[in-house]
Every structure is written in structure tokens, then in C-alpha cells.
């Protein structure tokens, strides 16, 4: 099932073209990896999908109908959630409080309604624990401050949270960039778990090794355009690595250096 389809999408900031003629599709239960160096246009692509900036040419369809998002809220309402590198968690607060922060379950009757309404704490703890378990995250104690979790686990809580609040498309912005090898592995496992749960995942990274472990489709961006766009069956890790490292430019450079 195709969730998002982009064809010939481009974005210009004034005279500067940040992204041109990129086509991409996000399918339910698949991981689409977007690779590229700094400044390749990865962030621009995310911003179009997550509703921070509308695209300036081409067509993006969501569930088959053309869409242009004016705000992140609109994208969220269509089930497109973005987990940014800075995790949007509050370290000293308990895991369950973080999980529901800003969307607390409440049961309030006047005058204890609105912001003064009581939280359904038991339900919140149970749901947070269940949802985390679904993602394979087992915390010692749902009451422990989220700051006691590792960076990778916190990333996973943010993912589980997005999934619980109705995401069908999950955009992950460099989720492994700030993490060590072991923690990256943990996050990749949860990327796979989200995929198996039937979500369409867009995995943004500059690490071809991480991408190849979970990806179903690969797109490499360079200077705002796609230079590689292949399904897993047609691409090897070597090809991805070479392209990411500079590809032909690297070959030329090696020729010039002549060693």
C-alpha cells in the first residue's frame, strides 16, 4: 500500500534550488532510506513531508490524493510523524509522563477539567509500558526518569510514542547519528519493529551500513537531486558505500593523486 508518493518534487528558497525533481514512494511495511552528505537536500525533503515547508513544484500525494502541508499539525493529522534528532523528552521526568507529555489522558469533570483535570495515571502507565513492550523496549520501571535510559532507548521511546499517537508514516531524522555502535543497533531493531508493525518508515541517514541493514528501497541525494534510486534487490552495499563516499569524484581524485 502506497502511503506517500512524490513525483518530480522540488523546492526553491528564492533563487536557490535546494531540491529538484525527486521522486520517492513510501509503502506500508517498508523502509525507504534517504542517504546523502551534508547539504544534499535530506532536510529539505523531510521538511516537505513533515509539513514544515511546502514544496514549490511537483506533486506529493498522500493516500492517493494530492497534498501540501501548511503546518506540522496537518501532517500529524494525516498520520505522518517525525522524530527529530533532539529527542523532545524531558530527562528528569518519568518514562510514562514523557510518553504522554502534551497529550495526557484525563478524566475531569468541572471544576477539575481542562488543565486542572486529573490524569488517568494507571491507564497511562499501563499503556506506556505496553506500547514500549510492543517495540521490544523493556524498562526497569515505568516510573524511572527517562534520563536514566540510554540515548538509543530514548530515541526508541520517541518512536514508540509517535506510533502510539497514530503515526502511519514515521520519518526518522538521523536517528543513529549521535549514537555508538551498540546503541545504533538498538535503534535499528526498533526501526525494523516499526516496519513490521506495518508503518511506512522514511529513514534519513548518512551511514550506508545502517541503511543497508534495514532498507527496502534506497535513494541517494547529491546537491538536491537523486543520483541513485533502487530497490534492495538491485543494489549492493558496496555500491551504496561508493556512491556515498563520492563515487566517480572519488575515482577521479584517486587518479589525480596517482598513488
Amino acid at each position, binding site marked *: 500500500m502506497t502511503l506517500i508518493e512524490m513525483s518530480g518534487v522540488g523546492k526553491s528558497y528564492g533563487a536557490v534550488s535546494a531540491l529538484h525533481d525527486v521522486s520517492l514512494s513510501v509503502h506500508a511495511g517498508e523502509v525507504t532510506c534517504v542517504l546523502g552528505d551534508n547539504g544534499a537536500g535530506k532536510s529539505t525533503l523531510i521538511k516537505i513531508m513533515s509539513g514544515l515547508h511546502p514544496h514549490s513544484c511537483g506533486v506529493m500525494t498522500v493516500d492517493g490524493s494530492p497534498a501540501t502541508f501548511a503546518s506540522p499539525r496537518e501532517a500529524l493529522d494525516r498520520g505522518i510523524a517525525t522524530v527529530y534528532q*533532539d*529527542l*523532545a*523528552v*524531558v*530527562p*528528569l*521526568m*518519568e518514562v510514562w*509522563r514523557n510518553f*504522554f*507529555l*502534551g*497529550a*495526557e489522558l*484525563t478524566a*475531569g469533570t468541572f471544576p*477539575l477539567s*481542562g*488543565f*486542572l*483535570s*486529573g*490524569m488517568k*495515571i494507571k491507564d497511562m502507565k499501563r499503556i506506556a509500558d505496553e506500547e514500549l513492550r510492543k517495540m*521490544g523496549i*523493556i524498562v*526497569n*520501571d*515505568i*516510573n*524511572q*526518569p527517562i*534520563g*536514566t*535510559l*540510554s540515548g538509543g*532507548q530514548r530515541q526508541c521511546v520517541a518512536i514508540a510514542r509517535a506510533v502510539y499517537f497514530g503515526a502511519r508514516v514515521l520519518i526518522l531524522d538521523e536517528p543513529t547519528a549521535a549514537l555508538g555502535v551498540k546503541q545504533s543497533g538498538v535503534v535499528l531493531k526498533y526501526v525494523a519493529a516499526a516496519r513490521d508493525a506495518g508503518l511506512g518508515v522514511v529513514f534519513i541517514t548518512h551511514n550506508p551500513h545502517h541503511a543497508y541493514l534495514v532498507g527496502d528501497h534506497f535513494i541517494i541525494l547529491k546537491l538536491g537531486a537523486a543520483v541513485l534510486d533502487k530497490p534492495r534487490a538491485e543494489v549492493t552495499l558496496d555500491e551504496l558505500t561508493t556512491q556515498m563516499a563520492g563515487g566517480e569524484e572519488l575515482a577521479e581524485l584517486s587518479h589525480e593523486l596517482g598513488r
Partner: protein
Amino acid sequence: MSHSVRAAPPVPASPEQPVRPRSSIGNRLLVRPEVGALVAALVIFVFFLAAAPAFRSAESFFTVLYQASTIGIVAVGVGLLMIGGEFDLSAGVITTSAGLVSSMFCWWFGVNLWIGALLSLIFCLFVGFVNGWLVMRTGIPSFLITLGTFFVLQGANLGVTKLVTGSVTSPDISGIDGYDSLGAIFSSSFKAGPVTVWITVIWWVLFVAVATWILTRARVGNWVYAVGGAPDSARAVGVPVVRTKIGLFMAVSFLGWFVGMHTLFRFNTLQAGNGVGNEFLYIIAAVVGGTLLTGGFGNAAGVAIGAFIFGMTNLGIVYAGWDPNWFKAFLGVMLLLAVLVNLYIKKMATARRTA
């Protein structure tokens, strides 16, 4: 905070999902904000029981509670505000402003004291709103904004009182209508057996209970911890940061008004220069009670214990027959110890507990 010390149901082990060892109950108690204060309170209590014979009566225990309540009521608000990541240095002097606005307005215009109390409440809430609004609007640290408010109010207290009465003492209100009914609310006491219970103690317990409910169970309590712990993250997930913080400043000024009313109806007349310095006592009570200076951590029970320690030492030193001047030095030592303990607890709380 809702840490609980009961054991969670055992986690089913599976080869792919390693089960991590649970932290010991001792460790988990340590990260509760009020534990340090509770231990300190017990030690100080036993110490004065031994050192001051006059301390060993129910009567003096309730005097301690009264003393603690006059600081503790505002300290509850200051504690909430500090958990929300802000300071209010005007909290001490606003108690005097509240009483002065009320008493001089009623004396000058010859109206019922209820009108004065209401007017004073509106005035205090307005000051709290301005504090919060300026902090949020300008991004200037609340320490500076409220230092400004503090001096404005301190100067105005003296200046306006002198203009109205010709001296720095407010007029006696005991003859004005509404004195008895308001006095019953703010400053009455009753006998329970051998002891005298001041109504402020009851109010204090009530405010602590409400603050505890808000922090642990209400939706807005979640927001208070979040805006203090990581305001940017809170905003990113849809927490109304500005409204929450302004609300906290207004809560402090409301409680300041409450204590101001108590002082007014207890003594019938006010010295316009009073209240200065109390803002630090509130902050000390909050910090001794385990509230983190940088926000995001603490609870109302801890702040109450902090205020109780204040009341105990304040009177204990007198009962023991020592020079009361040492009281401030003692408070300073308590504050330094508390800051060290809090720092340690914060480290414990955020230390990675993964195996």
C-alpha cells in the same frame, strides 16, 4: 513525584530482550526529593528535644507549626515555581504590599475590609501576571525581572504608606467593618486540648495537599515538571509553556496575598518595611526540601518539610536559650548542605541504570 517503591510485576525473560536488574529500594528512596530533608528534620528535632527542655511540649510543637506555616504557605508556591524553572524574589515583599493595599484603601475610603481584601487580591495576581509575562516576553532571567519588582514594591510600600498616613506604619484596621469575619478566616486560633492551633497551620496543610495533587495527578502538574526540566522539548510536544509559567508566578503572588492577609489581621497594623528577606526563606525552604534550583525536580511535601525545619530551628534556638543571631548562620549551613545533597540526588536520578 510518583515514584513508587512497590515492586512492579516481573518482566518475562526472553532471549532477545534481556531483563535488566532492578535498582534497589534504597537507591529508589534516595532519588525522592524530600528524603534528605526528612532525615535532616528528624535529626534537628531530636537535637532540640535533647538540647532545649522547653521544646519538649505539645504546646511548643504547635508554636513551631505556626511559625513554619507563615513561611510554608508562600514556600509551597515558590517551590512549584522553582520546579517550573523560575524564581520570584518579590514573593517576600508582596506579602506586605498585599496588607498595605488592603488596609490603607479601606481606611482612606471608609469601606468594608472585604472590598479591600478583594482589591488586594486583584493587585497581587496582577503583579504575578506582570512578573510572568515580562519573563516570558523578554526572555530575561526571572531572577532579574523579579529583583526589579521586589525593589519597586519595597519602595512603593514605604512611599505610599508615608503619603497616606504620614508615617511608615499602616492605620489600625480593627474598627473597620468586616474585621471579625476576615479575621476568622485568616488569623484565628482554637484550643485543642492543651495546644493552640492557628488556622494558618490548617491552611498550610491544605495548600500542601492541593499542590501535591496538582504535581502528581493533574495534567498541569505534568506541564510544570516539563517546563522546568526542558522547556524546548515541552513546547515541541504541545505543552503551553507560557501559560503554565505565568500561572505559576500568579500562584506565588496569590499565596503571598494570603500570608499578607494573615499578618494584617493578626497585628491590625503593618510596618511598611517588613517582608524584605522572606523571599530567601521561601527559596531556602524549597531547596532544603529537595527542589532543584535549575527546575524540573521537587515536590510539595519536601517544601513543607523545609519550612518545618525553618520553624523548628527558629524557635529551638530561642527555647535552648542561645543567641538567636546564630539562626541565620544555621540556615546558611542548611542551604549549602541541601544544595550538595540535591546535586548528588540529581546525578543519581539521571545516572544510567542500564546494566
